[in-house]
C-alpha cells in the first residue's frame, strides 16, 4: 500500500472531463512528477490531492486515510504554487512561520524552526525582506520553506519553476531535489517541462487528456516510451510510418529501406506501425560499425551547431531524419550536401503501434 493512493479519480467541470479514471500509488518518500501539456489534467489532479477541488468520482487515500471529505486545512500537506503565493504583508520570516503561528506553536520554538528553514534555503540574510523585495527565485525558496516547516505528510508542487529564468530554474530544481532527499518527504510535482521531470523525479507519470499515458522511471520513460505520444513528448524523436515484414524476426520497411529491430514485433506482419529513433542513437558510417546494424543512405541538408553537439538533418528518400553527434576534437565534420550513410543499432529502432491519428514529430 502506497503512502498516497489515488483510486479511479475522475473530475468533470460541467460536461468536460478533466481527469478520467486516474489511479496511482505513490510510496513514502518517493518523488513523482505529473508531466503533460496544458489541459492534460495534471494541475487539477494535484489540486484534488490538496483538497481545493473535490473529485467527481473515486477516492484519495493518504496514509490509509480517505481524505476525500477532509478540508484542505486538515490534510497536513505542503503546497507550493506557480506564482509563489507569498503573503505580501509579511516578511520572509513571517511567511515561513505562518503555519506554526496559527497552530499555536510557542514563539521561541517557531523562531528556532524558522531560522533552521532560512538556513536550509540559504536565505538567512533575507529573513526580514518583504516578498516584493525578493527575486522570483528567492520568493519560491521562501514558499518552499513555508510549505515544509509544518512537516507535512507530503509536498505538492504546482509548476513551481515555470515563472523563473532558465538559469535559476535549474539551480532551484536541484535544490528542491536535494531538500526532498534530505527530509525524505513524499513529493508530487507538476510540470510541463520534460527535462525538469526527468532530472528530478523517481518516477514520471506522463499525462494526456486526464489519464496517465505511461508511468515509470525517467530512464524507462525516455528509452522505452509505451506510446507514440510519450515518445514524441519526451525528447526529440525521428518517427516514421513503416510496415511490418516479419514480426517474428523484427523486420520492417520504411519507404524502400529495410530496418531490423532487436526484439520481435507484437504487431502482425503487413500492418502499419511507427518506427521511432532518437537522434543521438544515430551515427555516421565508419569501419567500427557493427555489421548487423541498420543503414540509411542520405544527403546532409542542414547542419545546426548546438555547442557540445551538432545536429544534422539528413534527407533519405523523401523523408528527413535528425542525427546528433558530439562535438569531440576527433569528430570529422561532414559538409552540407555530402552523401553519407547513417547507421544505428537494432536496439535503437523502436516499434510503436501505428495510431489512427496521423502525425509526425520532427524537429
Amino acid at each position, binding site marked *: 500500500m502506497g503512502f498516497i493512493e489515488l483510486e479511479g479519480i475522475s473530475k468533470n467541470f460541467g460536461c468536460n472531463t478533466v481527469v478520467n479514471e486516474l489511479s496511482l500509488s505513490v510510496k513514502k518518500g518517493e518523488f513523482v512528477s505529473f508531466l503533460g501539456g496544458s489541459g492534460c489534467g495534471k494541475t487539477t489532479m494535484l489540486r484534488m490531492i490538496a483538497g481545493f477541488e473535490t473529485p467527481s468520482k473515486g477516492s484519495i487515500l493518504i496514509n490509509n486515510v480517505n481524505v476525500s471529505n477532509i478540508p484542505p486545512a486538515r490534510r497536513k500537506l505542503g503546497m507550493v504554487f506557480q506564482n509563489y503565493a507569498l503573503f*505580501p504583508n*509579511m516578511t520572509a520570516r513571517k511567511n515561513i512561520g505562518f503555519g506554526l503561528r496559527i497552530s499555536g506553536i510557542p514563539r521561541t520554538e517557531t523562531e528556532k524552526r524558522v531560522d533552521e528553514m532560512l538556513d536550509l534555503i540559504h536565505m538567512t540574510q533575507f529573513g526580514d525582506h518583504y516578498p516584493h523585495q525578493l527575486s522570483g527565485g528567492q520568493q519560491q525558496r521562501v514558499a518552499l520553506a513555508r510549505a515544509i516547516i509544518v512537516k507535512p505528510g507530503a509536498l505538492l508542487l504546482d509548476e513551481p519553476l515555470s515563472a523563473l529564468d532558465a538559469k535559476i530554474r535549474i539551480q532551484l530544481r536541484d535544490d528542491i531535489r536535494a531538500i526532498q532527499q534530505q527530509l525524505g518527504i513524499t513529493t508530487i510535482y507538476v510540470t510541463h517541462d520534460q527535462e525538469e521531470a526527468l532530472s528530478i523525479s523517481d518516477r514520471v507519470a506522463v499525462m494526456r487528456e486526464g489519464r496517465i499515458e505511461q508511468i515509470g522511471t525517467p530512464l524507462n520513460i525516455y528509452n522505452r516510451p509505451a506510446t507514440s505520444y510519450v515518445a514524441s513528448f519526451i525528447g526529440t524523436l525521428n518517427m516514421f510510418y513503416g510496415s511490418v515484414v516479419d514480426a517474428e524476426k523484427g523486420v520492417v520497411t520504411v519507404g524502400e529501406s529495410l530496418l531490423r529491430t532487436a526484439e520481435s514485433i507484437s504487431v502482425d506482419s503487413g500492418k502499419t506501425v511507427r518506427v521511432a529513433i532518437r537522434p543521438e542513437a544515430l551515427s555516421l558510417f565508419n569501419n567500427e560499425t557493427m555489421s548487423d546494424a541498420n543503414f540509411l543512405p542520405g544527403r546532409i541538408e542542414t547542419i545546426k551547431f548546438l555547442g557540445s553537439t551538432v545536429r544534422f538533418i539528413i534527407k533519405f528518400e523523401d523523408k528527413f531524419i535528425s542525427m546528433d553527434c558530439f562535438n569531440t576534437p576527433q569528430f570529422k565534420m561532414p559538409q552540407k550536401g555530402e552523401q553519407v550513410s547513417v547507421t544505428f543499432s537494432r536496439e535503437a529502432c523502436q516499434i510503436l503501434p501505428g495510431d489512427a491519428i496521423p502525425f509526425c514529430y520532427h524537429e
Partner: protein
Amino acid sequence: MPDISAQGRPHTTDAGHISFFRLYAHRIRRQARWLGLAPFFIFLFAFMIIPASSLIVGSFQDNTGALTFDNFIHLLKPNIVSSYLITINLSATTAVLGGLGGLLIAYAISLGGLPQGIRSFVSTFSGVASNFAGVPLAFAFISTLGRAGFITVLLRSIFGIDLYDTGFNLYSFWGLSLTYIYFQIPLMVLIIQPALDGMKKEWREASENLGASAFQYWFHVGIPVLLPSLSAAVILLFGNAFGAYATAYALTGGLINLVPILIGAQIRGNVLHDPNLGYALAFGMIIIMTASIIAYLWLQRLSSRWIK
C-alpha cells in the same frame, strides 16, 4: 545660420567650450518640449490654480486688503465650528457606512462566486449611480422618504407606522446621510473592485493548506493586505462627501449648517456679509481636502506594493 541643436550631442569630446555649448543646446531643445504643454497649464492655472489660490490669499486679508489673521479667529465662532463638526461627522459617517456597503457588494461580485453577468451589471450600475448625485438624487429621496414620499405613505396606510413619529426626518442628519450613502456605495464599489480583484486566490489556498481557518486567513492576510486600499478608498469617500454641495442644497434648501452650504450662502451674499470670512471657510475646506488627498496617495502607494 546652421541649426546647432540638430547636431547637438551631449558627449562630444571636442574642446570643452564647444562640448558644453552643444550640451546646452541639446538641453534647451529637450526642455522646449515642455512648452507643448503650455496651453494646458495656462488653462489650468487660469481657471483652477489661481482662483483657488486667490481664496487662500484672501483668507489672510481684511476688507481693505491688509494682512490679518482675524478671519481664522472668526472660524472659531461656535456656529462655524459646529458646521465643520457636522460636515466632518456627516462625511465620516457616510464614508464608513458607504465604504462598508460598497465593500460587501464588491466582495459579493468579485470573490463571492456570483454569475459573471451580475458582476458586469453591478459595475455598470455603479457607474450610473455614482454619477447620479445632486438634485435628481435629492428628489428621488424626497419622493421616497419625504413626508409625502411613497414609502412613508405606504408604511402609514398599510402598517399604520408613521416614520416621522419614530423620529426619522429626511431633512435631518440621518436623512442626509442615507441620501449621501446612495452615491457613496457605488463609488466605493468602483474604487475597491480592483483591489479585491488583486487578491490572489492562491493566498487563500496557501493559508488553508497551512491549516488556517477562514477567520485566520482574513485576520492574518486578507484584511491586512486590503487595509491600505480600504482606508484610501474611505478617505476618498470622505472628501467626496465633504465637498458635495448640490445634494445638500437640493435636499435641505440650506437648512443644515454644512460647510459647503455656508460657503454657497457666503457667495450669494445672503447670510454673512464678510467675504474674507468666506475665504477662510474655503481655505479650511481646502486644507481638509488636501490632507485627505495626501493620506490617500500615501496609502495608495503602500497598497500598490502589495497588490499589482
